C-alpha cells in the first residue's frame, strides 16, 4: 500500500511507481483525450492529444511517469483548443469523409472531434491521393484514413506475435506499410482474428463484410461520449 498522489485539475489521485500520468488518471476515472494510446500496448506518445500541463510544462500524459508533487492541468480551454487544432490537422491531412466511411459512429477520431466540440476543419485540406489495399480476403486498408497512431503496428508485434505493419517515411511522406514482398496485405501474415485487424481507431483498417451492420442510433458514439466509453474500456484495463 502506498499513499503517493498527484493532482489533476485540483483533484488528488493516487498513483503507483511506474505508472504514467495517463494510467493513474484512467484508474482514477479521469479521462485524458487520446488517440494513439491503448493500455494494452507500449505507449507511443505520437498523437499529442493527451498533452497536459505538468507543473506548467507540456507533457504527453501517456508517456510521462507520474511522480510525487506533480500539479497537472488537463481540461482547460488552452489545452482543449490545442487538442481541437491537432484533431483538425488530422482531418485535413487525410481524407476523412465520414458520410461514406463504414467506421462512422464507431470512430475514435470522430468521437474525439465531437468531444472537443469541433464542427469544422479550420485548415485548408490536403486532398492527397492515397491508396486503398483491398487485396486481403477479409481485411482492407484505406490509407486515406490512416492517422499513423501505430496501434496496428504495436498490436501486431506485442499481441499477435507478428510484424505485419510499420510506418515508413517521414513528415508528409509518412505511410503505413505492410510487411510482405508485394507490399500487399494479402501476402502478409495478417489474419482476420488478429488484434491488429481490429485495433484501428479510424476507418483505415476495416473488416470486410461488416460495414453498416449496426444501425444508426446503436453505434458506440451515437449517444455515449468518448470519455465515458474510454474509461469503461480502458480504466478497467489499467486497474489490472
Amino acid at each position, binding site marked *: 500500500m502506498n499513499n503517493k498522489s498527484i493532482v489533476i485539475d485540483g483533484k488528488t489521485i493516487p498513483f503507483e511507481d511506474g505508472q504514467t500520468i495517463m494510467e493513474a488518471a484512467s484508474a482514477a476515472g479521469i479521462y485524458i483525450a487520446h488517440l494513439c494510446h491503448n493500455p494494452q500496448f507500449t505507449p507511443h506518445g505520437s498523437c499529442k492529444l493527451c498533452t497536459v500541463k505538468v507543473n506548467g510544462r507540456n507533457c504527453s500524459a501517456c508517456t510521462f511517469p507520474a511522480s510525487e508533487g506533480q500539479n497537472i492541468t488537463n481540461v482547460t480551454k488552452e489545452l482543449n483548443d490545442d487538442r481541437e487544432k491537432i484533431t483538425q490537422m488530422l*482531418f485535413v491531412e487525410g*481524407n*476523412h*469523409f*465520414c*458520410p*461514406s*466511411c463504414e467506421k*462512422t*459512429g464507431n470512430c475514435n477520431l*470522430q468521437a474525439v*472531434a*465531437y468531444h472537443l*466540440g469541433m*464542427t*469544422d*476543419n*479550420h485548415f*485548408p*485540406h490536403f*486532398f*492527397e*491521393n*492515397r491508396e486503398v489495399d483491398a487485396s486481403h480476403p477479409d481485411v482492407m486498408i484505406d490509407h486515406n484514413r490512416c492517422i499513423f497512431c501505430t496501434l496496428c503496428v504495436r498490436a501486431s508485434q506485442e499481441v499477435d506475435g507478428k510484424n505485419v505493419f510499420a510506418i515508413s517515411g517521414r513528415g508528409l511522406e509518412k505511410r503505413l506499410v505492410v510487411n510482405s514482398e508485394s507490399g500487399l496485405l494479402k501476402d502478409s501474415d495478417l489474419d482476420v482474428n488478429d488484434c491488429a485487424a481490429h485495433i484501428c481507431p479510424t476507418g483505415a483498417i476495416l473488416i470486410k463484410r461488416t460495414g453498416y451492420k449496426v444501425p*444508426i442510433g446503436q453505434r458506440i458514439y451515437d*449517444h455515449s*461520449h468518448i470519455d465515458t466509453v474510454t474509461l469503461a474500456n480502458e480504466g478497467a484495463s489499467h486497474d489490472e
Partner: protein
Amino acid sequence: MTNKKVKVATVSLAGCFGCHMSFLDLDERLVDLVEHVEFDRSPLTDIEHCSPDCDIGLIEGGVCNSENVHVLREFRKNCKILVAVGACAINGGLPAMRNHISLEDCLNEAYVDGIGVENPQIPNDIELPLLLDKVHPIHEVVKIDYFLPGCPPSADVFWKFLTDLLAGREPSLNYELVHFD
C-alpha cells in the same frame, strides 16, 4: 421590439439539396419560423440575388466551379452571418472525392469514355461555369461564422441554431445534434 423579420438567404453550391430537404423537415415548425424569418435569395423563393441587408446566409455544398465562387462571395458580401451547412460545405464532401483524379480524367470518364455515352464530347458552352480543378470547402474561399455538420444536419439542428440566433443567444448544439454523417 420591432416586427422586422430576420432575412435568411440560402443556396446549394456543389451539394445535393439534401440539406435543403432536411431544412424542410422542420415541417409545421416552418409556420412558426416564418413569423420571425423572411426568405431572401433561396431556391425556396426563386429570388436570384441577395438583398444587401441579409442577416443569415445558409450555404449548402462545397465550391466546385467558378459560379460557386461568385455566388459564395455574393453571400458573404450581403449576409451578416454566414453558415456552412452540411458535410460538403465543411470539407467538400462527396464531390471532393474527385480531388485525387485529374479534371481531364473526370471529364473524359463522364463525357467521352464512359459506358453508354453517345456523341462523346466534353461540354464547352459559354453558359457553363468552368469547373475548378479541385472541389473546396467554403471556408477556404470566404470567412465562415458557424458550421452545422451532418450529412445532412437534421431539422432539429436548423431549429436549434436558428431559434438560438433569433433569441439572441450564442448558438450551441448538444452532443446528440452534432454528427459528421
